[in-house]
């Protein structure tokens, strides 16, 4: 027995008044590593032990408010940002209708955080290997006695002095508590493990049998796998096995009205640009030009693109000939194709083609500006200032 390390000296009392007295005496004597164990909370003990008020409430407050914020932000995001939809004529952020869920989430987070915080962080539980367990002292304070102990780690610790002090205070029994030599894990006893194993087996087997053999349910996969056809998916419904279908013969898509002058060399003189060179049109034209035209004609239509030399070189659009083309002629070339250039009718809508033409005109004007243009613009800008 003597080679065991002493953990604490403890004493048992059988009267709540005496334990209060003992606790105040011990705390007044300057001990810090001591504790009182009673089968139920005793009124006035906090005062006797000089304990600071519990600050558990701050945990509750913090997590409760987090619950409020999470609920409100989440509902705001789903209902107003991710998929805004008018329901029952309410606004997207319908605060009165969000109150119930907000309240529930506040309460849920506040209570769970209070309990988990208290048990795990304030009490450092589970602690089944604490030296106090499985002692006579613990058996008694669990039932109907009131106990107090001072740990050997306390700077003022003196075995004999403490024993005498406890006797003077009216203890019915004092007991030395030792640190157990090795930890015992009752969890690992075979009987318990077998029970656990059987429970796990029955529950998992029963669940598997019910879901897969009795009810034939598919695994719950949050609608990741749906009965619809995705692009590139096969289908057993159609003879050719393709999920993606071609449109019906003769279907005309929006913005793709068939071009009446297809294959002709000279365009009709009736083709004229329906779009004005507004900012929006020019921006659309620029975007489409850079996407579809610039690979060959170059970013500024100089015919100096990144494909230079790989094909018969594309012409610059700043030549005299190109500048003198009517808008209709350029439209005709884009739609119909010319020499090596293929038709862009299936990729660029007719509106976008006209926008591209407007942008090409802007490029032509800026690349071929003369001194008189400079004067003209100066004149215009001075006019603007005067205004």
């Amino acid at each position, binding site marked *: 027995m003597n080679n065991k390390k002493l953990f604490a000296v403890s004493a048992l009392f059988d009267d*709540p*008044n005496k334990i209060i007295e003992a606790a105040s005496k011990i705390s007044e004597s300057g001990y810090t590593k001591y*504790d*009182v164990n009673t*089968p*139920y*909370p*005793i*009124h*006035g*003990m*906090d*005062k*006797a*032990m000089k304990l600071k008020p*519990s600050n*558990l409430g701050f945990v509750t407050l913090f997590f409760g408010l987090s619950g409020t914020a999470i609920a409100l932000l989440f509902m705001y995001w*789903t*209902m107003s940002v*991710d*998929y805004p939809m008018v*329901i029952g004529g*309410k606004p997207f952020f*319908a605060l009165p*209708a969000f109150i*119930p*869920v907000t*309240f*529930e*989430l506040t*309460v*849920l987070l506040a*209570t*769970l955080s*209070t*309990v988990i915080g*208290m048990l795990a962080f*304030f009490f450092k*539980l*589970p*602690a*089944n290997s*604490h030296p*106090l*367990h499985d002692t006579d002292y*613990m058996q008694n304070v*669990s*039932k*109907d006695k009131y106990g107090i102990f001072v740990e050997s780690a306390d700077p003022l610790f003196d075995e004999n002095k403490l024993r005498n002090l406890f006797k003077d205070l009216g203890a019915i029994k004092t007991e030395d508590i030792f640190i157990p030599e090795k930890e015992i894990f*009752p969890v690992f*006893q075979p*009987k*318990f493990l077998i029970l656990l194993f059987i429970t796990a087996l029955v529950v998992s087997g029963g669940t598997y049998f019910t*879901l897969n053999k009795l009810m034939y*349910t598919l695994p*719950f996969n*949050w*609608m*990741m796998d*749906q009965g619809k056809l995705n692009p590139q998916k096969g289908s057993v419904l159609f003879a050719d096995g393709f999920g993606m279908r071609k449109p019906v013969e003769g279907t005309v898509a929006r913005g793709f009205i068939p071009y009446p002058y297809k294959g002709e060399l000279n365009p009709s003189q009736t083709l004229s640009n329906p779009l004005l060179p507004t900012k929006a049109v020019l921006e659309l034209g620029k975007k489409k030009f850079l996407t579809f035209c610039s690979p060959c004609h170059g970013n500024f239509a100089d015919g100096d693109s990144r494909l230079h030399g790989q094909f018969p070189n594309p012409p610059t659009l700043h030549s005299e000939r190109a500048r003198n083309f009517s808008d209709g002629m350029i439209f005709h070339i884009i739609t119909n194709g010319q020499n090596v250039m293929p038709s862009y009718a299936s990729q660029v809508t007719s509106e976008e083609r006209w926008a591209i033409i407007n942008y090409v005109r802007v490029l032509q004007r800026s690349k071929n500006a003369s001194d008189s243009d400079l004067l003209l613009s100066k004149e215009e800008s001075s006019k603007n200032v005067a205004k």
Partner: protein
Amino acid sequence: MNVDYSRELPTIEGRLSLAEIERLVATPLESKPDKKFYIALSITGTFLLIGAICLAISFYYGTGMWGNNQPVGWAFPIVNFVFWVGIGHAGTLISAILFLLRQKWRTGIARFAEAMTIFAVMCAGIFPIIHTGRPWLAGYLTPYPNQHSLWVNFTSPLVWDVFAVSTYFTVSLVFWYVGLIPDFATMRDRTVSKLRKTIYSIFSLGWRHSNRHWQHYEKAYMLLAGFATPLVLSVHTIVSFDFAVSIMPGWHTTIFPPYFVAGAIFSGFAMVVTVLIFVRKIFDLQHIITINHLEKMNKVIIATSMMVGYAYAMEFFIAWYSGVPAEQFVFINRAFGPYAWAYWIMVSCNVIFPQFFWFRKIRRSVPIMLVIVILVNVGMWFERFVITVTSLSRDFLPSSWAYYKPTMYDAGILLGSFGLFFTLVILFTKALPVVSISEIKAVADGAQPVHHGGSHE
């Protein structure tokens, strides 16, 4: 019979010592179950089995096995759901609200009432889920990340219900477990069986009855009670929104939330009294769950009965006062239409019979009390039936009126829910301490110091 109400009655009778209290509560857990236990369990188990078979048939052939049809689509499942959720309200009320009101007598019955809350909410939870027809897809009731950004409708009372009931269940369970921790520790130090000791050790988390812990523990208990109190009020309020937010005549009224909450407390207390009468007798707990406890519960029952009666009267008044013909028709139809029989069962069981509790002799007489509280349970079930079925069966469109009749399977599933509830209650009495050992010790005579100078109680 002469009780002096001017003094506070002792919470525990007979001046039991702490060890005797502990022995009384722990005896059912340490003794082998007797014949009566198995008889009771086989009866409730049979009910449970009948319910399970009816459910299995309903799943196999579909919900067409039930009486639900146009225009009464809600019918039994929703009636049973509201009934069981209501029963569940007594537990939290006793453990949280009476705790905040410093009612010491709650200690004897709190644990049991909390357990009944949990079991009743479990029974309640079954019904909306089976009512969806495909209960295995219930996960879609929660907001989950979907490929199509398809979220649940947070402005719908049905979604509020999912949040309210699941939060309520979780919080009640946590509250119950926190109260059980010191008792698990006591049982751990009491038991001699190795296996039991292991199980109790795990659930007690190594609780040491340390006063440094008790301090935070009491604070946490108060915080939980503080949260559970508005929560319990919110749950039945939200359940009533399922009805009140619709435009159905007879449902679309602002009185519903307080009316439902009062009804929930009423039915919950009646159920707690019903079960406690048997438990205190069978487990010899008359000294801990005293006749004073039952009397106090009966006083709550008569108070809530009057509230419910007031609500019945006020519904009629508002229907007349509103001047809305549809509303007026619905209430006259309730009292004198095809479901008049259900309406008058409801009124007599909920308002008339509880009036006997004005007499002290009846309040303190166990057999009469038992009859009345069982009638209250019946009446409260019919209240939900009347509200749900009469409004739906005759709404705005006379061409779609129909008389709803439940089928055998509806009745079987209701019976099954009672089977589940009482099976769980019976198993609970043998598995866990039915009275909080640490709380009841704390209110025993001489358990607290007399002269520490503090004035707080």
